[in-house]
């Protein structure tokens, strides 16, 4: 972006202490009254300020249909920070941050409101010195994207000139199938060029996900066995124990596959399966990720290799919970799936013949996200069958959340006079201690937006390709007469998900 070869004399690659602080800039949040904004964005902004990573003079502008003055907005942020911030509250930090708060009331179709927003932003450049650099965080339903984008263009808010930048941040869902994703990308790209669009997938901001790359490419230990010679199959799981009460408006008709598999799980698959990038620059990382997504496809026949379910009521963990169709706001005849599992394969020399099983669901046994690489059995065992009865397959598990870390499972001799081998696990729990000090995903991602560092954000090519992978499943499910299979709340999904693995003699790991 910078043309003149300017080298800052105060920076030095060996000077690893110096953090990168964002240059002068401001952030405008649309939909500032929402849950995400209060629980994640505002606390993350405070935490960044507390760590000294926001520029002096940083400005935070809220836009919503509320009859608020700036003080009211400040109070909302204050409460959000008090409740949800990770780092301790410091008055001096808060005072400096609060000076940069602005609030503009209005609805998305109100031209005057956007003109006022434009004036506010221009005024911030003058008073706070934000230098014409502004990011717009669209924490709003995608149906509102077209009108907001149009307004940003009309009021001149999206126009970039010279050294100044304007960026837009959008949250999932990025469409609900390939066609709608393309449409959405077209609307956004009409106003903002692709390098100014930051799509947030908060999983990619997590330390453990970034650690997958470090684990794989910084070590000699794992990479030699990271291929179809040694790996039998891979299971990627994202399970939640909560239900969908209160989220009907968003979830009904969308379902687990669109909500989680299309973005989070396929991204985790890409990180697990990708080849080594030439460097860690964002362009190189994306090249490798797109390559692996292009090589990924579904395994058929879909009625046998996919599974979907819907939770039914029951006792879960000492609590009586209702089924999806009884949840408030859901259609009692809803066929929205709350559990989805698919089988993919990656057509590369490294992965040929290795199935990747992806599953996600609500109201499952516990909240856990993990990537389990299951290895083949040793080709020859110099033991007789009774000695290794209890020996399973070796496994390498990356625990993404909670309890971040790595588990390895291998065989070990049972103490005693006989030679018996059974599975033991070895845990690496860097996470247990480092989570407290490690930044929230949103901190990292917001900072990267302000710095213009795009490597942790999926580009539209990745988004569209992910839909291309998933669309046949969605179409197949929609065409079937039978709906999702019910499964009791608190279990690990419907019987069909076990059958899906059993057909090849495999079984799901209990995470």
């Amino acid at each position, binding site marked *: 972006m910078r043309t003149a070869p300017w080298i800052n004399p105060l920076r030095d690659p*060996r000077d690893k*202490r110096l953090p*990168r602080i964002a240059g002068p800039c401001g952030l405008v949040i649309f939909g500032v009254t929402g849950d995400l904004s209060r629980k994640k964005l505002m606390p993350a902004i405070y935490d960044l300020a507390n760590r*000294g990573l926001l520029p002096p003079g940083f400005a935070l502008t809220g836009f919503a249909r509320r009859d608020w003055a700036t003080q009211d907005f400040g109070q909302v942020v204050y409460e959000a920070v008090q409740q949800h911030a990770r780092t301790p509250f410091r008055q*001096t930090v808060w*005072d*400096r941050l609060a000076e940069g708060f602005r609030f503009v009331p209005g609805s998305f179709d109100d031209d005057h409101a956007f003109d006022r927003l434009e004036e506010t932003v221009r005024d911030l450049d003058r008073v706070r010195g934000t230098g014409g650099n502004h990011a717009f965080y669209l924490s709003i339903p995608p149906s509102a994207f077209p009108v907001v984008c149009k307004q940003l263009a009309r009021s001149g808010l999206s126009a970039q000139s010279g050294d100044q930048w304007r960026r837009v941040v959008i949250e999932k869902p990025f469409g609900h199938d390939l066609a709608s994703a393309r449409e959405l990308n077209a609307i956004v790209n009409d106003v903002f060029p692709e390098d100014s669009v930051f799509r947030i997938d908060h999983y990619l901001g997590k330390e453990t996900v970034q650690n997958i790359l470090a684990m794989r490419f910084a070590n000699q230990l794992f990479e030699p066995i990271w291929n179809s010679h040694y790996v039998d199959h891979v299971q990627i799981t994202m399970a939640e124990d909560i239900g969908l009460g209160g989220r009907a408006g968003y979830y009904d008709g969308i379902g687990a596959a669109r909500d989680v598999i299309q973005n989070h799980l396929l991204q985790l698959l890409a990180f697990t399966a990708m080849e080594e990038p030439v460097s860690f620059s964002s362009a190189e990382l994306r090249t490798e990720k797109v390559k692996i997504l292009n090589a990924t496809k579904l395994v058929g026949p879909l009625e046998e290799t996919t599974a979907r379910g819907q939770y039914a009521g029951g006792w879960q963990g000492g609590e009586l919970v209702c089924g999806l169709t009884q949840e408030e706001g859901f259609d009692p005849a809803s066929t929205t799936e709350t559990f989805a599992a698919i089988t993919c394969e990656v057509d590369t020399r490294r992965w040929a013949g290795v199935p990747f099983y992806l599953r996600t669901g609500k109201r499952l046994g516990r909240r856990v996200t993990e990537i389990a690489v299951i290895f083949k059995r040793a080709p020859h065992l110099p033991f007789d069958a009774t000695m290794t009865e209890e020996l399973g397959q070796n496994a390498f598990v990356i625990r993404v959340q909670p309890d971040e870390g790595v588990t390895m499972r291998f065989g070990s001799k049972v103490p005693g006079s006989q030679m018996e081998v059974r599975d033991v696990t070895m845990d690496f729990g860097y996470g247990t*201690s480092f989570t407290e000090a490690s930044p929230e995903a949103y901190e990292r991602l917001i900072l990267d937006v302000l710095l213009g560092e795009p490597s942790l954000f999926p580009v539209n090519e990745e988004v569209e390709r992910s839909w291309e992978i998933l669309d046949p499943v969605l179409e197949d499910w929609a065409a079937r007469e039978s709906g999702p299979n019910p499964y009791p709340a608190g279990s690990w999904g419907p019987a069909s998900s076990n059958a899906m693995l059993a057909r090849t003699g495999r079984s799901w790991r209990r995470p």
Partner: protein
Amino acid sequence: MIVDLPSSTTSAVNRKLVELRESGGVLALGRVLTLVIVTDDGGSIEGAIEAANSASREHPCRVIVLARGQRRAAPRLDAQIRVGGDAGASEVIVLRGYGQLADDEAGAAMVIPLLLPDAPIVAWWPGEAPAVPSRDAVGLLAQRRITDALSARNPLRAFEQRRANHVAGDTDLTWTRLTSWRALLATALDAPPHEAVTAATVVGEAVSPSTDLLAGWLAVRLNARVKRSPAKSGPGLVSVRLDRPSGPVELVRPDGRVGTLSQPGQPDRLVALARREVRDCLAEELRRLDPDEIYGAALAGVALVTRGRAPVRTPSPAAGS
């Protein structure tokens, strides 16, 4: 849990550690380093342990506190093991040596059997440090030696010793305290106009090693005349001014808490710039275990700095512009 082992030996301590792990089953093994804290026996121990525990949440480590007790006493080792809630994410072993065991060599010999296998060793002197840390008995064991000139009885003399005896692997918390200042200054130069700095002025308390060090850093990095002047008022480092053809970039912190950044053609901006606490500094130090070459260069750069005699008046604290 705190276990006291009076009149003990290090092998008894090791045995007890294994026993605690087997009976409690809770001690994590995933430690990334051993932190050896060398201090005099007294009230300052607890503050240092607290800082180490807090830093251990980011860097799980074994903490060995070498507390030197009375020299004129019969040789005796009182050990104490702290695990679980009393030790953050670390395990803390306090070794109080009396008599001949309060000597440096004997102290180092007590530390050796308790070091984690194959993990890096960091030595930290929270108070008075040896004149040449790299030749100290404990310092010789460690890859990284952390000192703090500011907490020495005579900060200026301690800082002179650091300059004279620096070797790769040494760092001082006076340097760590500057990180936020350095980051702000570097960021200010990141943005256009991209001009060379023609001269720089650093103002701070007369006794403020950090101020000298920042001037040294600027002198090395900028290749320009850097002047260091005493401040009329204000604690520690008070202001930095970088002159450029289009006008100066100035960062002023008159009250030790809030700084003002001013640049030509831009409104003054306030920034929270409180003096960093020891535990934050320690956590930053433990983040990197390789030698800090930039610090070494900054120490050498102190010799290039011009000394101003006349005290400089600080602009009055910015009143929320």
